[in-house]
């Protein structure tokens, strides 16, 4: 399971990166990065996964005393939440930029924004 999740996650990252680096349309790039971020999140969760265990919530199903044996690692889950939110923030920011770029220059082709160079 974990391997599949990780492999999928890595694959998504690679796909995302490939997309971001080959598409010169800004919106496509943003989408590609979102894909890559999803991959990262998948990897994060995947790393914390342990076969045959349950979610880290203590209730009747999982008593406090047995928790150590029953639950999976809760930390990656906490981390992934943060990662998702941050990814969201960055994506929002990029979208905003895309909008402003379009407003000022009327194009979303990143290869047109090369007045700063060398």
């Amino acid at each position, binding site marked *: 399971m*974990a*391997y599949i999740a*990780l*492999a999928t996650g*890595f694959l998504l*990252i*690679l796909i995302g*990166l*490939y997309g971001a*680096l*080959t598409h010169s349309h800004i919106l496509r790039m943003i989408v590609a990065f979102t894909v890559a971020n999803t991959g990262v999140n998948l990897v994060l969760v995947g*790393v914390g*996964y*342990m*076969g045959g265990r349950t*979610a*880290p*919530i*203590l*209730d009747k199903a999982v008593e*406090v005393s047995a*928790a*150590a044996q029953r*639950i999976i*690692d*809760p*930390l990656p*889950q*906490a*981390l992934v*939440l*943060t990662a998702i*939110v*941050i990814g*969201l*923030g*960055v994506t*929002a*920011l990029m*979208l*905003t*930029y895309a*909008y*402003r770029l379009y*407003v*000022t220059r009327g194009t979303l082709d990143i290869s047109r924004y090369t007045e700063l160079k060398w």
Partner: protein
Amino acid sequence: MIKRFLVLLLVLSMGVMFSQLLVGYSPDRQLNATAHYYATQTASETGAANIVSAIIVTYRGLDTLGEVTVLFLAAAIVGMVLSAKQGGQSPTSASEAERQLPPYPPVGELLATGTQLLVPLILMFGAYVIVNGHLTPGGGFQGGAILASGMLLLLLSDPLRTIGHRLISVVESFSGLAFVLLGILGLLLAGGFLDNKILPLGTFGSLFSAGAIPVIYIFIGLKVGAEFSSMLLNLAKTEER
């Protein structure tokens, strides 16, 4: 073509690196020391049933504060960019342009009615998710996002609706401030910054338990909801042009 090939090569090299990670990876059989601590001590230390929530709000509260700040930042910047008092084609003229634009096509009956029906439900569900964050899966972020989805629905049904921007901004700032203050209270009253023991831990598993976690979660939820809403509002405005 060469560029694509190059990129492909690079991505594949990254792939090779990742594959090394993958090969080197072996799932843990046992919880590691940190996780074991959380599994065994969360209940007694924080009183939260949802260990992830405990970690998010308390153990790694500083991360969460940062996370909330990220949202705040994102919202503020989106606002900054889009309100754009700065150079370029000043969107202040957009509001004037807006009047000349043809009105949007009327929203469908289904959407209008659905909105009226669903929004209160959504808001309620959001509130539920927030307050039960320390017990069940969910919490401030999830709840906040649900709250914001209500807002999204409202915007979809009536794109020209103006929702109290000011209110949203006060909510986001206030809840953020409250989060920080709660953290400082932890510093003053309990074991450290963002310690949840400033309030009694209560009965494990009940609604009013886990010290300050639910309180913080409420603020987080409010804040997240407000941030998302503000971002949505700001992005919606771009549509007006």
